[in-house]
């Protein structure tokens, strides 16, 4: 056995508190918990809609409650963090090469943000904003 055995100095469970960068990484990964929970909620809402008007109205009533509003605010914050972190790595994840040159990453990222803004605004107006 080695005279100076190696002891891990960083906790296996709490390592991500050790540096702000690790914390941001974990926040990015945990955004998926809220994204997934929201997907499950959409499924649940469709199920209630299928069951009938009384069940649907009960769900709509719950959506007005502070716990629901709180959940959706936190979920929105994590969803936005997911969007920003996902778009910002697109030049690395999907590099575009034209001839010998790399397509500038800033344009790839910028296009994503532009399309995102247009789609989001269009859907929000279609949903009834301003009527």
């Amino acid at each position, binding site marked *: 056995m080695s005279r100076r055995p190696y002891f891990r100095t960083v906790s296996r469970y709490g390592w991500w508190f050790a540096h702000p960068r690790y914390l941001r990484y974990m926040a990015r990964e945990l955004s998926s918990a809220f994204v*997934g929970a929201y997907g499950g*909620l959409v499924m649940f809402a469709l199920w209630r809609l299928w069951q009938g008007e009384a069940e*649907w109205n009960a769900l709509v009533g719950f*959506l007005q409650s502070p716990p629901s*509003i709180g959940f*959706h605010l936190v979920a929105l914050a994590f969803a936005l963090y997911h969007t920003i972190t996902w778009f910002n790595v697109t030049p690395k994840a999907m590099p575009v090469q034209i001839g010998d040159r790399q397509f500038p990453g800033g344009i790839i990222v910028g296009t994503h943000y532009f399309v995102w803004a247009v789609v989001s605004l269009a859907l*929000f107006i279609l949903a*009834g904003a301003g009527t």
Partner: protein
Amino acid sequence: MKRSHKPIIWSLFAAGGTFTAFMIPVMILITGLGVPLGLLPAQTLDYESVLAFVQHPLTRIALFGTIFLTVWHAAHRLRITAHDFGIRADRVVATIFYGLAAITTLVALVVLALI
């Protein structure tokens, strides 16, 4: 050589990540915050109008795609994140998360087909 299922799971994660990045913030705003915060009119969530909207074939497909991609993206990322939290029982973790995603997808498929 044993073929890996990793490319399939990974492509669902990547497609889901891209889709959710574009769609989920505005969807949360519309379905969860718009009416309670007064950004959208109260009748946005009326039973009759929501039912009519959901029954449109294109909406059914879009909603199924949304749920499918969202939960599989989350399931894969949470499985990997469980490892980061120091949980090493990958088989158990994968079964739970992929199982939840599969059940959610299946229920969504049935409900959207019958509604």
